[in-house]
């Protein structure tokens, strides 16, 4: 099988994006001081990346697993985590 990019993988999923509320918020000031940035490797949807030397995060495409909250070395401070509002987010058709 051909190798798929994360954009292609997320592209097959069904999402209902909440335009009004981000369910995960990242405190970039704290993240700028974080060297290992494990979220950039561990997030299965690869939503954390480094752009222009700064951590960049997009909640669209989140698979709602909670990995970022767990691997964050500044857990509870750098990442404000909750599930999307009812009816929003990923909608697994297989699961």
């Amino acid at each position, binding site marked *: 099988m051909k190798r798929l990019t994360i954009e292609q993988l997320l592209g097959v999923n069904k999402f209902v994006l909440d335009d009004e509320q981000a369910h995960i918020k990242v405190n970039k000031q704290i993240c700028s001081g974080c060297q290992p940035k494990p979220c950039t490797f561990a997030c299965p949807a690869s939503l954390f990346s480094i752009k222009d030397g700064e951590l960049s995060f997009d909640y669209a495409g989140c698979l709602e697993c909670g990995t970022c909250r767990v691997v964050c070395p500044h857990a509870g401070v750098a990442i404000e985590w909750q599930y999307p509002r*009812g009816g929003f987010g990923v909608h697994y058709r*297989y*699961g």
Partner: protein
Amino acid sequence: MSEDRSTAIIVGAGPAGSTAAYLLAKEGHEVVLVERGTTPGSKNMYGGRMYSHALNRIMPGFWEEAPVERPIAQESITFLSGDKSVSIGCQNMGWAADPYHSFTLLRAEFDAWLAAKAEEAGALLACGIRVDELLTDGGKVIGIRAGEDEMLADVVVAADGVNSILAQKAGWAKMFSPGQVATGVKQIIELPAETIGQRFQLEGNNGAARLFVGDCSKGMQGGGFLYTNKSSISLGLVINAGALQGSQAKLCDIIEDFKSNPHIAPLIEGGQVAEYSAHLVPEAGLAMAPQLYGDGMVVVGDAAGFVLNLGYTVRGMDFAIASGEAAARTIMEAKARNDFSRQGLSRYKELLSQSFVLRDLEAYRKAPEFLENQRMFKAYPELVAGLATRLFTVDGSPPVHLMKMVFGQIKQSDISLMQLVRDSLKGAIDL
């Protein structure tokens, strides 16, 4: 605030929550089953197989009507090391006959079916609702708040999954440490049913379950899995979150590497990816269990950390269903005495201890520790694959007797003889 008070509010329409709702509703109790997805199952994901025993006790012959995929007749574990692999396989046709040992199934369909059973029995199913807070009165849980809405109940059942917000809000669960959970990622790869039957040498609608250890996790604590559904394959990885903290590869790339592994690629060739999903797996067993019951609330399923991974079997749904059953029985007894205090709900722990849930988790209490051994994920797969390849190789080189070959291979590996003896003993005792 509504003055209507139901017997139970069950948060989460997964297998644990829906089982509890079904049993309570069937006995005529007023039950509200709250689910944050727009349909039950739409937020849920797992590896791919449910052991039947727990549900079969509650709904005998459930497979006649439940949306199951294939009964598993084949099990195997494969050690992956570069271009080499060694598999241990087992086939038992008896597993794929009544009372079917285990089934592959897809959660979006199956969880929706189980929740519908609860609804048919009289439970009120409310979907698309995220529960935000617990309502408490003097330390006792008395209901929930979701947005502007508040709902009251004699008891709340926290069936809200591994990231149990409710158990955390109640102060019953600490935030787990990275080493206590694993991240599971999975792709659903569609293939025609006949192709699956041929590739896995399956008779009729029988299915196969395959576990992998070694290269698939890049030496990190974890492994791979493959389950055959009717016309798709569930392929994925489970990697410890503590190990992931030090990963230098992206998880989404690691699963793509796994797909292109020479031992996997031919099995999925020509397939179409239909879904990519991820979920946390509680891995530490009793070491991460929250307070299981207290004034006005009980915790069930993944929220209680009820998962058991022994390396060769991985179980979660049977624990979820049996804990939902124990919660329902507890609530029925508490209702009869009208005592939903910590004391009144203490029966839950007793029922869990009498069932396989706490018995098995207790018996294998040390399994998570055994599977933390780094050697399991790189050095041993290399050793086993190296040894087996030598055994089967004929190339004209001088003969080496088996004993010498084994010791020679161990000497070449990163494992000392002492470690091997110690690891074998520990495995024999812990598993």
